[in-house]
């Protein structure tokens, strides 16, 4: 048994080396090449819904909807990565922010909500982001003084409080939920977009039966947010987060206002979570407390860590797998999650550094793994 594991692991290490080699080769490519490939890749992503690539498309669910889900999960992962991967704060209740964002849009925008304001989407979303940011600060202010796993349980509690509140309060319409969550725009596809497979001029851009518009919007937001987070990561702010993750006391004594930066991490993470929630439920048109169970929240953490906490591409990959695989393998309906659980264990054992670890993590983990222990 152990022997099999070992040989499998060897093979895997070979693969990792190949990937690492690829990464180095990438870094050595001329600037022009890198930029060009990057652009091409981005265009490819936008074109995906129209490409009908055989192996990856999903037989049982609308492929574009799956792509949209992937994009939303990537957005979630990018936000959660700020909190977990960069600042090292274990947030198990991230879904609470997702819920706050989504509910803000639903309550302010839906004609069927208890609050009859009916703001348009473009007004609701900035409000939703602001509200989630504030809720991040409200949660963070008292609790960020707590250490590691205490924070984890408190955030978990927060997620649960939000859910129970949504389930029982009048403003969220309780478990019955709110229908008619607004879509980003009532506009229709213009004539000149008609050539794209799946788009019919004159049909609404944002509708449940054709999700391309939602997908493109989500993808665009993903790129914007990733760019923003990348800027933070490679600045004094990112370094402070790292230092906090490593040794909070020492960081404080070295002049890092740890509380402030943790709060920022929380607020930024919350804002991204809120945005994702708003986006997802605009497509869904319906929202109730069912969508916000802790289990999903915990799976997101898994996606971030499995993908490679700290590395944006890694967490994006983790999120995509989490969103995509269950849809791709709907045939196994009842065993899907069972397989998923086993896969998580296997994955952690084979790739404790995540699928695409940040460079730093990679070195750190390789070293640790080699050191191993004495005996046995």
């Amino acid at each position, binding site marked *: 048994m152990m022997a099999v594991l070992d040989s499998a692991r060897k093979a895997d290490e070979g693969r990792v080396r190949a990937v690492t080699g690829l990464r180095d080769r990438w870094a050595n490519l001329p600037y022009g090449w890198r930029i060009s490939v990057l652009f091409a890749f981005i265009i490819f992503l936008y074109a995906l819904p129209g490409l009908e690539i055989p192996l990856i498309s999903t037989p049982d669910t609308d492929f574009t909807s799956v792509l949209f889900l992937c994009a939303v999960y990537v957005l979630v992962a990018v936000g959660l990565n700020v909190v977990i991967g960069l600042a090292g704060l274990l947030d198990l209740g991230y879904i609470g922010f997702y819920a706050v964002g989504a509910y803000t849009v639903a309550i302010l925008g839906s004609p069927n909500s208890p609050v009859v304001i009916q703001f348009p989407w473009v007004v609701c979303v900035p409000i939703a982001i602001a509200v989630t940011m504030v809720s991040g600060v409200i949660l963070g202010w008292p609790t960020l003084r707590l250490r590691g796993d205490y924070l984890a349980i408190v955030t978990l509690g927060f997620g649960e409080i939000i859910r129970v509140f949504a*389930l029982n309060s009048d403003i969220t319409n*309780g478990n019955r939920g709110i*229908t008619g969550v607004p879509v980003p725009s009532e506009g229709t596809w213009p004539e000149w977009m008609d050539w794209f497979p799946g788009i019919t001029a004159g049909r609404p851009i944002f509708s*449940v*039966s054709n999700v391309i518009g939602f997908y493109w919007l989500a993808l665009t937001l993903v790129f914007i947010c990733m760019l923003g987070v990348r800027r933070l990561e490679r600045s004094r702010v990112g370094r402070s987060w790292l230092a906090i993750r490593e040794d909070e006391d020492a960081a404080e004594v070295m002049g890092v206002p740890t509380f402030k930066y943790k709060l920022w991490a929380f607020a930024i993470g919350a804002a991204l979570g809120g945005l994702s929630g708003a986006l997802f439920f605009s497509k869904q048109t319906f929202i109730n407390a069912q969508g916000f169970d802790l289990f999903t929240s915990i799976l997101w953490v898994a996606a971030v860590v499995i993908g490679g906490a700290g590395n944006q591409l890694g967490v994006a990959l983790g999120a995509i797998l989490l969103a995509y695989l269950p849809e791709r393998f709907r045939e196994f309906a009842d065993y899907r999650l069972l397989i998923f659980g086993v896969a998580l264990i296997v994955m952690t054992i084979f790739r404790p550094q995540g699928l695409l670890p940040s460079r730093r993590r990679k070195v750190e983990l390789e070293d640790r793994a080699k050191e191993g222990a004495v005996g046995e």
Partner: protein
Amino acid sequence: GSKIAFFGALTGGNAQLGINIRDGAKLAVDQYNKANADCKVELVEKDSAGDPAQASGLATSVVQDAKILGVVGPAFSGESKVANPIMSKEGVVIITPSATNPALADQGDKTFHRALGNDASQGPGLALYMKDVMKVQKTFVVDDASEYGKGLADQVKKTLGSVVTANAVVKEQQTDFGALVTQINSSGADSIFWGGYYREAAPFLKQYRDAGGKAKFVAGDGVKDQAFVDGAGAANAEGAILTCPCVPPEKAGGTFAADYKAAVGRDAGTYSAEAFDAANILLAGIKAGNSTREKLETFVDGYTGQGVTTSFKFQENGEIDPSAVAIWAYKVAGGKIVADQEAPKS
């Protein structure tokens, strides 16, 4: 050929309610296919697990399959509320054999039809039964915050008026009711009305009786399934009153009860007969050559006919004629759910 879809819970804690309905619809389709071997209709099953959050995705998948002309379901009110607007916007014909929340007819979903009475008649009927037949004095009302459960509980509360002493809300999938049992016991209620499904009702009643609770237990159609009696334990469930805006299957017309038993292997359950009727209406439309959603919709809107449960003629808002509605009270006796009497009408 064309397809019709079943939409409802086939898995999850309330699966039995959905399965009965699916089997009713399936019987209809099978009979149809046997009679029309040249032009078969396929029954597509969309399992929602009874979860409204999954309904939007499933509705989208129904819409996107252009061959699906009509839907038997969605089975529960919660999922209906989400799925109906999506499906109706794309013209999919909806005939629900079971979702009873009255508000479903007011959502402006043009293709919505309901093949049975709603909770605006079940609720008051049930409450009158409690007051007039059971002579309850103090009722503790519990609901599960679902579209159906809360809706029905509200109707019941309205009619019972001051008889209601207290109320409480339970969570979906709750299994431990220790706190609720304490509350009911100390409230001195002589009866409990349960607005919800059997998944929670069964463990609750067991714990309540285990803790020595004696109050009479009354609930609506969401609890009316043998799975409830089995889950709570026959002794604990004994005497419980369950209502339903449906006729007892054995009273259904024609050979339905026998056919069902022969095909499925067990007695017809709650709403099996209604589902059979709903499916037959759609099938009749297809048979008449209505091969698009629009045509089928026009057909169903204009349909009149006698099913095994009642006679159908849909009104403008999709409801059947109130005179065709019957509310029945059932009683758990000897570990089985048996028809008791038709509930009084308000």
